[in-house]
């Protein structure tokens, strides 16, 4: 049976992917479930598995090439089975003008591929607007990008095009401090775009709370001493605490969409993981239905996959809430940017011994500051405050987490 392997959609806003590495070569035997390729999306590198067995008869998209989601990248079939139409199929072109309107141009990764032809004024406008010419289709002779093409592109996507003032390369640099220019990775480009949009669209406000972690740490120590299963981390406890709190405050487990508020029925919590190339947020789905131990186990695997670039489709399930923990960096507190289209994000600082007043006396306790950033279109100050109050209680009376 002839099976077409297509560029899978591995994320709700994924439009294209780059084949980073073929794990199987033409002629190799492939069993269903085998990982046959590594694909880079705007967020991470993901493993692609085969959905049928057979021989990997033809690789249509070589390593390093980017194709739109849904495009055929390989053919699996029986050894001698005729493959119709393959001979005519040239390796998928980088640019399919019909498919995606703003299909990016080839980067010219090797010396033979030409640079993007564009007229001087088109380049100037693009430069001034901080626009990557690779995103523009040229209609001049030979596919040259001309002024009209750039202007048309900018007119259609004003929200996404970064505003002129923070242009990465200022056309008229007011100073001449020497600098080194760095290209944005796909991940960085995505972060830049999404975080800017989040701040622009969602009216953020912030509520901070300081939590006494004495009991939570004791519980953790005790549970880990049992030596069963995965070690429980502070983050795991935060996830569990958040899940329980969200159960009680569904209005925080929501999104502002099309003028309405969507209250989600699942509680999928994303845990921000700092990779070398940028921040990724793999999601633990249905945290409300999982025990602390289960959360600990899954979180550990999830983070491991994220770090080694082996995230799966499920890992990119859309989240409904995010926790970002910078506690390991000796941070008192910080404020995070909401991950759109979520309504809130929790920023967690370090656990630090601090003086507290207990019964009129000054004592030392392990304290941790958390800050909730909330989208005011969805959440009010009182709700946010009460949410944090409850969250704090779950951690200060941590037996709740294992009940």
């Amino acid at each position, binding site marked *: 049976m002839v099976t077409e392997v297509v560029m899978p959609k591995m994320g709700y806003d994924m439009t294209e992917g780059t084949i980073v590495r073929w794990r199987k070569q033409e002629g190799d035997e492939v069993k269903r479930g085998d990982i046959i390729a590594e694909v880079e999306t705007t967020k991470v590198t993901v493993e692609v598995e085969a959905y049928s067995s057979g021989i990997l008869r033809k690789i249509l998209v070589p390593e390093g090439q980017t194709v739109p989601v849904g495009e055929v990248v390989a053919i699996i079939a029986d050894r001698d089975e005729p493959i119709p139409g393959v001979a005519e199929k040239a390796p998928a072109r980088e640019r399919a*003008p019909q498919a995606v309107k703003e299909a990016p141009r080839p980067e010219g990764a090797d010396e033979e591929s030409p640079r993007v032809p564009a*007229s*001087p*004024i*088109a*380049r*100037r406008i693009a430069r001034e607007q901080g626009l990557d010419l690779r995103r523009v*289709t*040229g*209609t*001049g*002779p*030979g*596919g040259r990008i*001309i*002024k009209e*093409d750039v202007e*048309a592109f900018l007119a259609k996507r004003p929200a996404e095009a970064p505003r002129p003032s923070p242009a990465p390369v200022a056309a008229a640099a007011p100073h001449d401090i020497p600098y080194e220019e760095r290209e944005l990775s796909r991940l960085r480009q995505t972060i830049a775009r999404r975080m800017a949009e989040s701040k622009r669209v969602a009216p953020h406000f912030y509520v901070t709370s300081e939590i006494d972690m004495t009991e939570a740490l004791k519980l953790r120590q005790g549970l880990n001493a049992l030596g069963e299963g995965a070690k429980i981390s502070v983050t795991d406890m935060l996830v569990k605490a958040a899940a329980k709190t969200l159960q009680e405050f569904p209005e925080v487990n929501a999104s502002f969409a099309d003028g309405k508020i969507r209250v989600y029925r699942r509680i999928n919590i994303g845990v921000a993981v700092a990779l070398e190339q940028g921040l990724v947020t793999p999601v633990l789905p249905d945290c409300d239905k999982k025990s602390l131990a289960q959360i600990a186990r899954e979180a550990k695997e999830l983070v491991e996959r994220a770090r080694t670039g082996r995230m799966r489709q499920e890992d990119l399930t859309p989240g409904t809430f995010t926790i970002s923990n910078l506690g390991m960096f000796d941070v008192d507190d910080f404020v995070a940017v909401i991950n759109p289209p979520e309504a809130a994000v929790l920023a967690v600082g370090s656990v630090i011994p601090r003086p507290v007043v207990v019964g009129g006396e000054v004592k030392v306790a392990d304290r941790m500051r958390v800050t909730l950033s909330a989208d005011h279109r969805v959440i009010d100050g009182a709700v946010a405050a009460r949410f944090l109050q409850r969250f704090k209680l779950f951690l200060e009376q941590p037996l709740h987490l294992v009940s």
Partner: protein
Amino acid sequence: MAMITYREALHHALREEMTRDERVLIFGEDVVAYGGAYGVTSGLAKDYGEKRVFDAPIAEGVIAGAAVGAAMGGLRPVAELMTINFALLAADQIINHAAKVMHMFGGQMSVPLVIRAVGGGGAQLASTHSQSLEPMFAHVPGLKVITPATPADGKGLLKSAIRDDDPVLFIEHALLYRVRGEVPEGEHLVPLGKAEVKREGKDITLVAYSRMTLVALQAADLLSQEGIEAEVVDLRSLRPLDMETVLASVRKTHRALTVEEAWRTYGIGAEIASRIQEEAFDDLDAPIRRVSGVEVPLPYAKNLEQAAIPDAQRVMKAVKEVLARTGG
């Protein structure tokens, strides 16, 4: 304002300047009884006398040389060289003497001289009588080279040239003499070294001079019917060259095309294109194109000659090539 021909406009200029300054005199081949090979000096000898308007034998070397000497001696001669082709015989005096006196002798005197010559082809006069040699002379520092396209410019520029203290090669065009145009009466002076936008447009800049300005204007009219608005810049002066006007236009339209009757290689268009890309590179939306005379000696046969000289159709075609799109 008067509606007169190019020929009449030049004639008036000569007349007015002869009256204004008695140091102005005219000599050349057949300027008296014949009235000038193209009729520009007709009647002047009668009115100003043969001490001021007189014939010279067919000897372009001494015509030009004597004009230089006379200018050095305090006169303001307007020497006529019949055609630019014959100017080659005078080129030594023009380039080695007229253009060099001021500088070579440390600024002690200048050469207030005008040499009039007719350039261009289209009258089936065959190759030695049809050339456009202005690039050769415009190349030389110390000379000024003027190429009027309209009667008004002809009059204004000739008057300015006569009053200028430097040697001016004033190149007319045989096929322009009968062209009519509005010309202001009296003291109408056009400054040397200033181009003029003869027609405004936003889609492309056409840079031309002499008869090709009219060809460009014709093309612009036809293009307008197809929705393409061309801006026509008439150089009027090849040396000094007014690039400011050209650049301002290119910064507006972002595309440029030069039109000249002279040959393409090492020509006026080459200079314009080079200067545009040097000074307005980031304003260009397309490469600069040149429409020029086909690079061959001009033949006698009518159809061949017509094919060799740029016309409105060729200009239009080139404009469309500059504006071409592949899709979208």
